[in-house]
């Protein structure tokens, strides 16, 4: 990818996107929903790849940052009655500002401290919604994405439309991130990750670069959260649990942590785990307990096995680190 120009990258991504959108007409609603889920997870995982894989900071709280984006999108849409694509931008921006503040604190923290701090965020923040009336409590708030544009015809399903929206968003994110990472910013982050002291000696403002990475990563996570709100039709504390944050970290690890393209693979795996485990559970006649928890067991085992056996992540042929 190193020598591909931004335009060529965009062309490739658009081509893949067009293929996916065309293919989405041939599948049922559930698959379209899952496709949208993959796109959203891929965006959220790419936020972690950017943060952890490039700037070397860890976050266990990206689920909470998604919540910030999701709530901001919902609130801006319902209170100001703005078009929902605009609410996504507001969701991203609010998460970005939040991430900027968090990043200032984070840049001063070393690994385990940052992990613990973001964990505290993941546990604490979503439950904040229960405390403030305006956030809708346990039930949350509904997100009205409106109808499918009429020019697409009456048989264009809602979920297929969501799929189209999320794929477009994912293409935009991947294109922007990919280009960003091949600029000097990307090189700075990599330098910091491999050796912060050397990077500082080479004249890189380590603190500023880390805050920038945190801000951008949060913005991207906020976008994922906004899209998630659209897909679910609501925001609620239960949609942004600690488990979500774990899931995203797992996705990033499966992606190979510093492999942007791997985010898509990670997202596909994450979305297919519940599907596969449901199939397995019903095949073996499992109870509700099994159906509800088997995906978690599988995800965790995958996570542990990946860090244990392929700590650098699976090798991906494309979009790999340079």
């Amino acid at each position, binding site marked *: 990818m190193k020598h591909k120009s931004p335009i060529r990258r965009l062309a490739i991504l658009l081509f893949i996107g067009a293929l996916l959108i065309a293919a989405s007409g041939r599948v049922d609603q559930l698959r379209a929903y899952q496709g949208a889920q993959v796109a959203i997870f891929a965006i959220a995982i790419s936020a972690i790849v950017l943060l952890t894989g490039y700037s070397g900071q860890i976050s266990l709280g990206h689920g909470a940052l998604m919540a910030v984006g999701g709530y901001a999108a919902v609130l801006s849409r319902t209170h100001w009655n703005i078009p929902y694509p605009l609410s996504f931008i507001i969701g991203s921006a609010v998460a970005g500002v939040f991430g900027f503040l968090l990043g200032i604190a984070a840049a001063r923290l070393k690994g385990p401290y940052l992990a613990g701090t973001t*964990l505290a965020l993941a546990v604490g923040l979503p439950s904040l919604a229960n405390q403030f009336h305006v956030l809708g409590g346990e039930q949350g708030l509904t997100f009205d994405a409106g109808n499918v544009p009429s020019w697409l015809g009456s048989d264009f399903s809602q979920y297929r439309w969501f799929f189209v929206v999320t794929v477009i968003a994912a293409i935009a994110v991947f294109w922007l991130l990919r280009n960003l990472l091949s600029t000097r910013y990307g090189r700075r982050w990599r330098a910091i990750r491999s050796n912060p002291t050397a990077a500082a000696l080479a004249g890189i403002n380590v603190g500023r670069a880390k805050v920038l990475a945190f801000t951008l990563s949060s913005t991207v996570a906020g976008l994922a959260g906004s899209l998630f709100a659209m897909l679910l039709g609501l925001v609620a504390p239960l949609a942004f649990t600690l488990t979500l944050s774990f899931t995203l970290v797992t996705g990033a690890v499966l992606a190979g942590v510093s492999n942007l393209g791997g985010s898509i693979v990670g997202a596909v795996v994450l979305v297919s785990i519940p599907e596969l485990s449901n199939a397995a559970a019903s095949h073996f006649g499992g109870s509700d307990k099994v159906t509800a928890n088997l995906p978690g067991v599988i995800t965790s085992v995958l996570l542990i096995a990946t860090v244990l056996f392929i700590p650098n992540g699976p090798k991906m042929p494309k979009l790999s680190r340079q």
Partner: protein
Amino acid sequence: MQIFINTILVGLSSGAIYSLMSLALVLVWRSTRVVNFAAAGQAILSTYIGYEAMSSMHNYWLSLPVAILAGAGISALVEALVMRPLAKRSKGTPVEAIAPVIATLGVLGGIRSLAGLIWGNNFIQYTSPLSSKGYTIGQTTIPFSPQNAAIVIGAVVVMAMFAAIFKFTRLGLALRAASFQPEISRLAGVRVDRIRTIGWAFAGAAGAVAGALVTPTSYLSPNSLDLLLVSGFVAAVIGGLESLIGAVVGGVVLGLGFAFILQYIGTSVTFSAAFIILVIVLLIRPQGIFGRRSGREA
């Protein structure tokens, strides 16, 4: 005045629990330089095992040692089966720093799901024969129950035992030496790998005590100890992460802090309070109350 005293009592009881969880984290940090996010998962599993023991023996007090032994065993297994091989495998790779965080997270997630798989996600009552109703002094009922008293006493007993082991036994000396200077300890003949596993087992036991004591005041579910993990971490950071005394003091400080926030500011901020206190401590005094500045470098 009565309200003030009540608040202190409430704070002491929750502080005792935080101290135990904080101790669990500090013990592991000292022995392997890992913040064990799986501590909450280990404590959940040991508490479920305690619950099973109570169901079959019909005695809460007999179930406590079962839970504690289970907690120690689970923690030792996590260290020996996951963390030790991980440390050897990830050494020198780019993910060396984040691999332990991710692995403990994986263990936490795995245990929570496993517990859900076995016991379901619904709330379970793991009850103690002690009342959770506050003592009555004169006409007023104070928010401090016999179970709260048991929590404080239990925590104090555990801490005293740890203090005695660390201070007066050869095992304690080996644990301290191995955590400070593993290489010199090995050259002195300390089997550091084994000592580390024992350190984790102690941590697991502390977490198990926390889980088994606090659960009768609420309920048991696969993620009912998540918040305790965060509180324990905050307490450990307040205490400096290195120091056992710091862990205990950090827990009590946090418990009292929460109790006063709850009493005088309101419930709406409790969940974010842990986070805000954590950030403030890390920004203002990153070495904690008892830590030395160099301790943060790892």
